[in-house]
C-alpha cells in the first residue's frame, strides 16, 4: 500500500449563521501518494470547503485532517501558512497569479519565500515552464497571457516548491475546451511521469473523464468513491 498524503477523519464543517449550514458532513477520505483524484458534485455540495480544509485554508468544525501525518488542527495561523508553503501547491479557479510579476517571477515566487538559492530557482523555473509549454513566455506578465496559459503558469507555480500534493479548485472552470485538454494533458503527465499527487474539485465532465479516482459529494457527504 502506498503512503497516505491526506487523511480526513469524520470531518464536518458547519457555517454558523441565522440558519447553520453543514457544508461538509462527517467525511472520511484517504488519498495516497501519486493519486489523480477528482472531487465532484453539484454546486454547494461542499467540494471547495473540503479542499480548503485539506489545504489548511479553513478549519473543520469537528474531525481531524492529517497531511503527511501532520495534524492540521493544532497548528496556529502562521504555522499553517508555513505548512502550506512547504507541503501544498494550489491552483485556483481564476488563475490568481500576481499581476505585476512575469510568468517566471510568479513561478519563482514560492521558491523565494522558501529561500532557495538563485541557481536552483532559475533551473527549476525553466524546467517547470518548459513542462507546461510556456518556455517562450517566461517574461510575459499575466495580462499578456491567455486564460489557459495563465492557468498553466499557476500549475508551474504550484509545483515550484515540490509540494506533497497539488490542490486545484475547479482549475478548468474558466477555460475553453482546447485549453482544458491542454491543461489536463500536462497535469496527467506530471502525475504519471513525476508522481505528482493531484486533488481537484470539478464538475467539468472532461476533467472527470480523465480522473483515475472520482469522489462524489452530495450535500457534504461522500456519495460514491470510484477508482478506475
Amino acid at each position, binding site marked *: 500500500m502506498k503512503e497516505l498524503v491526506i487523511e480526513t477523519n469524520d470531518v464536518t464543517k458547519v457555517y454558523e449563521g441565522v440558519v447553520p449550514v453543514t457544508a461538509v458532513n462527517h467525511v472520511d477520505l484517504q488519498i495516497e501518494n501519486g493519486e489523480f483524484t477528482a472531487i465532484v458534485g453539484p454546486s454547494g455540495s461542499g467540494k*471547495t470547503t473540503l479542499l480548503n480544509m485539506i*489545504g489548511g485554508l479553513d478549519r473543520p468544525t469537528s474531525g481531524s485532517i492529517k497531511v503527511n501525518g501532520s495534524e492540521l488542527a493544532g497548528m496556529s495561523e502562521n504555522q499553517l501558512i508555513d505548512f*502550506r508553503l512547504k507541503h501544498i501547491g*494550489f491552483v485556483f479557479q481564476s488563475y*490568481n497569479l*500576481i499581476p505585476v510579476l512575469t510568468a517566471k517571477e510568479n513561478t519563482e515566487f*514560492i521558491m523565494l519565500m522558501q529561500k532557495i538559492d538563485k541557481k536552483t530557482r532559475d533551473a527549476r523555473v525553466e524546467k517547470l515552464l518548459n513542462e507546461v509549454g510556456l518556455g517562450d513566455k517566461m517574461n510575459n506578465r499575466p495580462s499578456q497571457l491567455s486564460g489557459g496559459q495563465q492557468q498553466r503558469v499557476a500549475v508551474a507555480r504550484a509545483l515550484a516548491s515540490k509540494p506533497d500534493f497539488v490542490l486545484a479548485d475547479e482549475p478548468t472552470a474558466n477555460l475553453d475546451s482546447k485549453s482544458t485538454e491542454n491543461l489536463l494533458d500536462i497535469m496527467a503527465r506530471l502525475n504519471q511521469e513525476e508522481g505528482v499527487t493531484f486533488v481537484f474539485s470539478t464538475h467539468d465532465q472532461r476533467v472527470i473523464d480523465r480522473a483515475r479516482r472520482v469522489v462524489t459529494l452530495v450535500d457534504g457527504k461522500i456519495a460514491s468513491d470510484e477508482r478506475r
Partner: protein
Amino acid sequence: MLVKIAWRNIWRNKVRSLVVIIALALGLWAGTFASGFYEGMMKQKINDVIQSEMSHLQVHDTLFREEMLTKYFMHDATSIEQEIAQDRTVLGTTGRVVVMAMMGSANKNGGVKMIGINPEDESKVTGLNEKVIEGEYFEGIKRNPILISQKMAENYKLKLRSKVVLTVQDLEGEIVAASFRVVGIYKSGNGMVDEVNAYVERSDVQRMLSIESDDYHEIAVLLNENDIAESKAAEFQKAFPNLEVKPWLDLAAGMRYMVEAGQTFSLIIVAIILIALLFSVINTMLMAVMERTKEIGMLMAIGLNRTKVFSMIMLETIFLSLIGGPLGLLVAYLFISTTGKNGIDLGAQGEAYSEMGFAAVVYPELGIETYIIITVMVLVMALIAAIYPARKALKLNPSEAIRKI
C-alpha cells in the same frame, strides 16, 4: 521580491497613484514654501530690528525702559561706551538721549520719541544716514536740526527747513520747549519706527534736559555676529552690574516669541497639511487593498505569511509617500531658492506689512534643519498612513478572500 511587488503594485493604477503623489507633492510644496516664506520674513525682520532699531544689545539704567523717565540716565556713559567699544566683537556703539516729547507744527501737535544722537556714531551703528530720502543728514542747519520721518512730514505737513517746537519735561519736572528745523526726512521701511522716532543732535537735547554731555539714556551696540548677542549681553551685564544690558531679543517686544514660535507655527502648518494628506494616502491604499482582496488572499494561501503581507502593504504606502514627499520638497527647495534670490514683492499688501514693521519684499529662505524636520515628518506620516491598510490586509481570511469576485 516583496520590494519589487510593492513597487510594481503602485503603478498598477497609474492615475490613482499619480493623483496621490501629486497631492502629496503639492501639499508639501505649499507647506514647505509657507515655512520658507515665514522664515525669510522673520530673518529680514530680525536683521531690520538689529540693523535699524535695536542693534545687538543696549545698555540702560535699570529703571529706564520701564519708566521712560528722563531722570533715569547713565552717569559717565562715555566711559562705559568706550569700555564696551574695546571688545573685539563690537563693530560700533552709539550713545543716545531718549525722551518722550510733544512735537508741534503749525498744523498739528503730537507725541514723538525724541532721540538725541551723535550723527556720526549713529550712522555707523544703524545706518540712519542711508535712510534719508530728502534733505541732508544733519548738515546745513547749525542750530537745532531735526531729522523726521516721511510719515511725520506728511502728518504734520512739514517740509525741509520747516520749524517745529518740541516740548519735554526736564530733570526737575519743568516743561521745557525748544524749536528745531527740519534738516532731513528719512524713511526706515518700518512703519512703527517712522511713526514715532524723531532724531536730534544729542547735545541739543542734553541742553534742554539740563543733563551733562556724558549722560546718556541708552547705549546701542552693534556686534560682528547675530548669534553672540545674548552671550555678549550677559558678559557686559557682569561687567556693569548696576546697569541693565539686554540683547535685542529681549528689547524688541514680542521678537523672542515670534522667533521661537515662528518655526513651530510653520511646522504646525506642515503637520496639518500632512495630516490631510495622510487620509488621502490611507484612502488610496485602502482602495488598493480592497481591490486586491482576492490576490492578497491568494498570496496568504500559497504561503506568504502575515508579516510579509503587512510589510508588502507598508512598503507600497511608504513608496507612494516617498515619491510625493521628496518631489514636493525638491519643488519647494527650487521655489524657495529662486524666490529667495529675486524676492517676492507683496505689492499693495506690502505697505500694510511695512506698517507692522515687516519688509514689503520678502526673500524666502529655509534652513537645512527645517528640511530635515519636514522629511522626518513625511516619513512618520508615511508609516502612520501605512499601518491601517496593512492591518486591514492582515485581517483577510485567505479562503474567503479567494472566493471574492
